[in-house]
């Protein structure tokens, strides 16, 4: 096994035992990046020099025996929609190609507080809108398991980078599945935390009431370590919830005895391939062998999730993205006549097709005369979807579903069919609408491509889903490295 195949907790052990230095780790990942980045295309920006300098500082701290965080000296990547001071934050959009934020996102500070070395910013669908990274204005990332396939999206760059061994862990953002779906398609672990667990300050907003930052990692333990680093109340984000800090490493317990699992039939319906269904049921059987029990249940409002999502998310996006008007920062058309023309041209040139589509849908659904029929009704259905989950959690400790309806699709396969693309989020979208946490872990392979299993928990009960995920991982061998 190569160094770049190791997990965060494994390299952390090596660092502690002084069997490797942080500088060496950084050099190793950059060697790997040089070897595979041309194929994988995960990164939009890399900070090699700075990473090496920081690694030297960390090595000095290790040498001095200072108490250090779990991520001390370990290369980490972040999705390019999280603001990094003095470093371009593009959201994979022409609109922000040259945008340099004057401040760091809270998660960036938190990672750095834990000693993480941020080595670069990863590719994504423009403004996190998409499920394949094909909506990036700059490049299409590829699935390291098979370069003809998409890595999923919108955090596809983060997923591909971790899967390819270009970095030990990465942050993504998840509005309707953008962490879990690429994690599933790349055969790694991804957590969408409870809405309000992780600060959104500095995350360029797509849909404010749905967005949440979370980790993508090689195994469950790494995910717990990264979640430990980024979770917690932030006074700069009033939707982040003040709660006692939890050590998620304590949930890494190999035991699911007596655990009650709900399996909602709506997530195994049309659109989910038979092979995926079969594989998830096999996984459930494995959990039963380990002492859990499962029961088929119904979450009746599931069928309204996708329509509800495609009202609320575009509505919020149409407002959130209105600030990109070419006045203060971002792309401005070179020639224009008057202020309205400046707006129209700058936005028309700066935004890609999918972003424009959602802005138009959102603008329409918020228009007076349509508001009640669309946005207001969607908000009411949202409450019903949430109630579905709340009711289920009165009986069950967690809910298990497929993460995505199928294995990764080929590059270009769905680019002309937005609805088909939207369907790939059918299993993940309801979780954002309800605001509950979910983790995706590898659950097997279909045609040589990894398949993810989604474990959903109650609000702020990340511990249970981490525990179930960890137990499954410890007792199966689906967690494999892609060979590139």
């Amino acid at each position, binding site marked *: 096994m190569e160094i770049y195949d190791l997990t965060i907790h494994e390299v952390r052990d090596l660092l502690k035992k002084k069997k490797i230095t942080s500088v060496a780790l950084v050099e190793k990942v950059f060697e790997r990046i040089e070897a595979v980045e041309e194929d994988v295309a995960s990164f939009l920006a890399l900070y090699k020099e700075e990473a090496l300098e920081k690694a030297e500082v960390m090595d000095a701290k290790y040498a001095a025996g200072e108490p250090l965080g779990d991520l001390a000296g370990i290369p980490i990547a972040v999705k390019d929609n999280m603001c990094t001071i003095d470093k371009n934050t593009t959201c994979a959009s022409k609109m922000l190609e040259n945008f340099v934020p004057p401040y760091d996102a809270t998660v960036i500070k938190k990672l750095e507080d834990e000693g993480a070395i941020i080595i670069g910013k990863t590719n994504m669908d423009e403004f996190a809108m998409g499920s394949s990274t094909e909506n990036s204005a700059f490049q299409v990332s590829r699935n390291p398991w098979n370069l003809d396939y998409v890595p999923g999206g919108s955090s596809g760059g983060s997923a591909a980078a971790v899967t390819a061994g270009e970095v030990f862990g990465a942050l993504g953002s998840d509005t309707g599945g953008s962490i879990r779906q690429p994690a599933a398609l790349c055969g790694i672990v991804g957590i969408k935390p409870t809405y309000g667990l992780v600060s*959104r300050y500095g995350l360029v907003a797509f849909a404010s009431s749905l967005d949440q930052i979370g980790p993508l990692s090689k195994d469950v333990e790494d995910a717990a370590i990264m979640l430990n680093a980024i979770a917690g109340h932030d006074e700069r984000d009033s939707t982040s919830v003040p709660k006692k800090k939890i050590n998620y490493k304590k949930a890494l317990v190999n035991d699911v005895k007596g655990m009650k699992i709900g399996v909602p039939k709506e997530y195994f319906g049309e659109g989910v391939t038979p092979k995926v269904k079969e594989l998830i049921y096999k996984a459930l059987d494995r959990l039963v062998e380990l002492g859990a029990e499962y029961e088929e249940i119904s979450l009746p409002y599931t069928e309204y999730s996708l329509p509800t999502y495609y009202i609320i998310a575009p509505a919020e996006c149409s407002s959130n993205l209105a600030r990109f008007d070419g006045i203060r920062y971002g792309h401005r058309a070179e020639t224009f006549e008057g202020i309205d023309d400046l707006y129209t041209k700058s936005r028309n040139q700066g935004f890609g097709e999918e972003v424009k589509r959602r802005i138009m849908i959102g603008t329409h659904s918020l228009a007076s005369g349509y508001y009640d029929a669309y946005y207001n009704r969607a908000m009411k259905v949202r409450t019903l979807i949430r109630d579905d989950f709340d009711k289920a959690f009165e009986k069950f400790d967690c809910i298990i579903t497929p993460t995505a309806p199928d294995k990764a699709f080929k590059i270009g396969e769905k680019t002309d069919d937005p609805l088909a693309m939207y369907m790939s989020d059918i299993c993940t979208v309801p979780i954002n609408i309800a605001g509950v946490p979910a983790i995706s872990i590898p659950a097997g392979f279909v045609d040589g491509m990894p398949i993810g299993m989604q474990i959903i928990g109650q609000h702020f009960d990340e511990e249970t889903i981490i525990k179930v995920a960890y137990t499954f991982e410890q007792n199966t061998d689906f967690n494999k490295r892609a060979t590139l």
Partner: protein
Amino acid sequence: MEFKTIVGLEIHSELKTKSKIFCSCTTEFGGDVNTQCCPVCMGFPGSLPVVNKKVLDYAIKAGLAFECDIASHSKMDRKNYFYPDLVKAYQISQYDLPLCSNGKITIEKSDGTTKDIGLIRIHIEEDTGKSLHGLKEVSLLDYNRSGVGLIEIVTHPDIETPEEAVLFLDELKATLEYLEVSDVKMEQGSLRCDVNINVVAKDGSIKSRISEIKNLNSFKAVQKSIDYEAHRHTELLKAGKNSEKDTRRWDSDKNKTVFMRSKQHVEDYRYFPEPDIVDFEISDEWIQEIREKLPELPKAKKERFVKEFDIPAYDAQVLVNDKKLAHYFEALCADFNDPKLISNWIMTEMLRRMNLEEVTLDELKFEEKDLVILFKQIAENKISNNAGKKVFRKMFETGEKPLALIESMGLKQISDDDFIEELVTEVLEENPDAIEDIKNGKDRAIGYLVGQVMKKSKGKANPQMVSQMIKDHCL
């Protein structure tokens, strides 16, 4: 046909919290352009608003002072529109759940009658930046004001005359000043007022379409614009036409309103709940806490002044309309027990001078205690009232001390019997005709003779004594 004017006002008042509504930037007026802003009030990508609790406190305070219902549950909403001074292309405001609703302000009209002007709502929102136009081909933007907390106060269309509008604004301004929630300076934009106006035939048969007037930078402008628009609307109706539903601005140079844009197509602001800010739950305890700390408000102070100091209601109103002036008056009364004399002096000499020289109370050159000394000199007949005015003028101009001025200006009043007797005798000898007139009951002649004596005394003789002595001689 007779017409009635109907006016509703929308008032924006900047809250003087130390920091802005959603970030910690200062709200100080007059800083260098774009030095008082941060990623939040510049609406930078990824930044998030966090509500300044003081803004809620201040708005609730105003709501209570204007007898509003305070919402137990409230929220912020986004008002979406594009304009370069609006950094996020949406303003965080309140739509369907304003913090305060159903209030009123009672005005007292010059004929002594009172009238309630209803308030529909008071809500909180963020201010925008400022566009600076007119520099060649470019427009510049200053975002210092962006994100300053505002309250918007919307009245029912209860106002029928320019006088009522000004009385309402006086009361509103004074109350906000007493509450210490706003600087209420129209010239600095911390108080802004838009007028919505139309006219209706008294028999209800016909009415004009509503015009909104913006850019009103003084109460005088509000008054004049209502006059102007009421006339314009009425004339249109009389001519068998009607006004257009439009937005106009007041041109203070030309003393008229000017058409800005039509309101036939209403702009759609696509309001929706602000997802970045959690809803507010306002407890009874919170409201009670604020209620208990409310200061004495202008209305109560006015009633107390009339009762306690026995001054005319009009004087009391003028005094309380300016919080600092009311305070100044009370301080003077505490040091010198002649409220009527003090009130008279403030109402006439002092305010006249201050208005003439455009000087505020804070800028007065003399100290309050010097004014007390001057008043005592007058009350004790050490100087005449006229001499007092001369001294006051000098104090106002230079800040010199009153006693020194009386001395140097030679205004010390002479009440010496022999001295005055001598001058009176002299004058009577010179004006035998006048004596005859007095004897025949022509009182005016007394005044003339007193004047002659004062002239000879170079203004120093005690005029009361002179007058008495002349009467004693003649009658």
